Each structure stands twice: as C-alpha cells, then as structure tokens.
C-alpha cells in the first residue's frame, strides 16, 4: 500500500521529468463536475477538505490513470454518499437509466 508516512499525493520534492506544457480546454461535462463540486459544498454537504481527502484515499493509480475531472466526480460521489444526499441504490438505478438513453454524453441528457 501507499507509504503511510509519505503518501502518494504529498509529492513536493519527488523526482520527476520535464513539466508537460500541453493543455486542453474543458469539456461541458467537466465544467458540470466542477460546478456540482462547488454547489455541493455551498449546500453544506462537504468541504474542499473532504473532496481532497477522498481524492487522496483513491490512491496513486487513480491519479495516474484517471483524468482530473473523473477523479473529481468520483470524490464528489463519495462525499455526497457520506452526506446521505442519495443512496448507492438510487445512484445505481439512475446510472442505468442514463445509460439506456444513448451512447454519447450529448445523447443521454434528459
């Protein structure tokens, strides 16, 4: 597991290569994740610290393999589940309902 005395996200000073300079603009689904994270905090369900705590607990593999907003939506979900905003049963059923609407992000919007 992650070294408990030097966790993976605590990367200041670690050896690493050249800074990658390529960037991208945010897709609408990423902007929506960002908005839901801000609004979920404004609703009092969690704090930015809770968002980070879940991101850290997801581990280094998630950092390496998932995009930034994929990790954010996973952490958002973790925090909303903990806050009791919805249940896993409700999330599972809703995700099945969404998937059945189509094959692309644009196609599944209600």
């Amino acid at each position: 597991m992650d070294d408990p005395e030097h966790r993976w996200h605590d990367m200041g000073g670690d050896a690493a290569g050249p800074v990658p300079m390529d960037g991208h603009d945010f897709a609408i689904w990423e902007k929506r994740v960002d908005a839901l994270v801000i609004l979920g905090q404004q609703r009092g369900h969690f704090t930015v610290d809770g968002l980070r705590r879940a991101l850290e607990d997801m581990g280094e593999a998630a950092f390496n393999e998932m995009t930034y907003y994929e990790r954010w939506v996973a952490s958002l979900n973790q925090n909303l589940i903990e806050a009791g905003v919805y249940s896993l049963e409700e999330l599972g059923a809703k995700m099945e309902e969404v998937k059945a609407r189509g094959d692309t992000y644009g196609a599944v919007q209600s």
Partner: protein
Amino acid sequence: MTLPVGASVRIKTMSPLGHIRTPKYLRGKTGVVERVLGPFNNPEQLAYMVPATPRTLYRVRFEMGHIWPDAEAPQDTLDAEIYEHWIDQDAP
C-alpha cells in the same frame, strides 16, 4: 499563545494517517514565522465533517539550502502555511 512574526519554529515530524496539510518535505525542518494568518478551522476535522476547531495558521519561511542541502540557490526560500498544532513548541 500566538507566535510573533520572526519566531523560529520547527515543524513536527509526526505522520498521522489521514487528511493532513503539512507536506512531508517540511516535517522536522526549521523556519521563521513570516506572517500570522489568524484562526482557520482545522482541515483535519473538516475533511471528515466532524466539528472543527479554529487553529492559528502561520506562513512559515524556510531556506531552500536547509530543506535541500544540494539546492541550486541555497538563499532562495520556500513559504508554506502551517497550522499551530504542527509546530513543535518543545523544539530548541
């Protein structure tokens, strides 16, 4: 007691497992209070949605040559925000 600007402080070396905001590379290092930022609720409690206690937050300045003995420019500095409970009051 709030530490004054200019006070020499050493950062604790502890590593409790959980959400903490003191980076590993500064633990055990000595710096100087650059400014006092005032009380902020403890993120180590906020992260778990338990009642959070206000703790004094400081900006502490470290010399690069102290943090990294092989620093390219040892006189350069590193400033970080450190909560009071990460400052070792028993340090010399």
